[in-house]
Structure formats: C-alpha cells, structure tokens
C-alpha cells in the first residue's frame, strides 16, 4: 500500500523542480510552464490528503485551483504576446521597461 508520505515527497520534489525552472530559465513561456508544474504539485498534495482523510473538500479546492490556473495561463500568455509584439523577444533578461 502506498502511504501518503510518498505522494507528499513526490509533490515536494516536483515543486522544487518548478522553483528551479522559474528561477533559472530566461524564456517567459517556459517560466509559465514551470509555474504550471508547481500548481500541479500542490494539487497532488491536496488530492492525496483528501484521499487520506476521506474528505471531498480537498478535491473541490483542486477544482477551483484548476479554474484559476486556466485563467492565469490565458492572461499570462496574452501578456507574453503583447510583450513580444513590442520588444520582439520573450527573453526576460532583455525586458527591462519596469526595472530600475
């Protein structure tokens, strides 16, 4: 029998991979993908706790988190398109309009 700790350890590792991806990559689209990996890791934690406690509320929270993730991706990719149209790049080291 797989215990919940295995799922929690897996999602911790996945979350860390997402963190490293966000911090190291320069491509804005890959950074958004890494954010999706982090969101998925947290969702996995919620579902495993929900299965363990026999409580459906964790899965409902995951459902709402999915909706927010979909909205986030739609707006984020629109912002990337707008930035690309102005700067012809998605390299975040070259986008410095608001940087001091």
């Amino acid at each position, binding site marked *: 029998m797989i215990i919940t700790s295995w*799922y929690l350890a897996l999602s911790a*590792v996945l979350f860390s991979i997402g963190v490293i991806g966000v911090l190291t990559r320069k491509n804005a689209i890959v950074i958004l993908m890494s954010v999706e*990996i982090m969101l998925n890791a947290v969702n996995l934690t919620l579902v495993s706790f929900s299965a363990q406690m*026999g409580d459906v509320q964790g*899965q409902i929270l995951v459902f709402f988190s999915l909706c927010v993730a979909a909205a986030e991706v739609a707006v984020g*990719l629109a912002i990337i*398109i707008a930035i690309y149209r102005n700067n012809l790049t998605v390299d975040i080291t070259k986008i410095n309009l608001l940087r001091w």
Partner: protein
Amino acid sequence: MITYLFLFFALLALGTAILVVTNKSTVNSALALVFHMLSIAGLYLLLRAQFLAVVQVLVYAGAIVVLFLFVIMLLNLEKEEKLFAEFSFRHAIAFFAGIAVLAQLLYALGSWTGVLPEFADQMIAIGTVEAIGDELFTTYLLPFEVTAILLTAAVVGALMIAQRKLKSQDK
C-alpha cells in the same frame, strides 16, 4: 500492482518535469508538459479521484497545453543556445534556492511522518462525479458561480491585452 503503477507514474512525472525545465526547444518543453499532466492524472486515478483525473486531462493536457503550443507557434521562437553552459552567479543562487525549498519541504514532511493516519475506508466513494457534484452544487455553489465570473473576466482581459492596437494608441 498499485506500487508499480505509482512508481511508473511518479518517475514519468519527475522525468518529464525535468525535461520541461531543461529542454532548449520550447515546443519540446510543451510536449513534455503534456506527458507530465497525463502522469499526474494517472496519480489522481491511483488516489481514486476519477473526476479530477478526467478534468486534468481535459483542461491541462487538452486546453492549456494547446494554448501554450498555439502561442509558441504564433511567436515562432528559435531554440535557446547555451542553456546552462556559462556559469553565472544568478544560476548558482537559483539552484541554491531550489535546493533550500526542497530541503524545507522534506524536513516539514519528515517531522510529520507517523502522525498521518492510514487511508480512510470511505475513500472509494469520494472521488466520483456524484460525490463532488453533490458538494459543489450545495455547499460551494457561490464559489462555483464566482469561478464563472473569473473565467469570463480572464477571457475578456486576455482578448484586451492581446489585441493588436489599444484604442488609446490609435490617436
């Protein structure tokens, strides 16, 4: 059997997550992301959350990754050169921060092992569409409706931002 399935999906999720982060080609990253989402859906199935597994495949592996691929094709990006080739202080700090987050999470997890009870007996019934729909449309009806407003606002906002010219720039 369940142990082997867990190991298979877990290794697939880990491998594809590393591929997403380390791949030079953005398209390959998006394709690895599809397999990552599918393996997460498999893990949901092992936890008997059937409804969420289906939603994961439909929304993440379907809609979101297609949106990513669409934008990648639209922008026509070329491959990045020298992903981690040159050593920079920024990368070193980033890796250190990632390892620190991992250590912190595993420490928190390690101090809680043993406290967690075994899987509940009623876990068979909670992941079905019936159980989730029952709770969603009674207790959580208002948040569900607010989600509809959120998605509408996101679609309108995305259209506004991605528009070719804003009206204020026309004059």
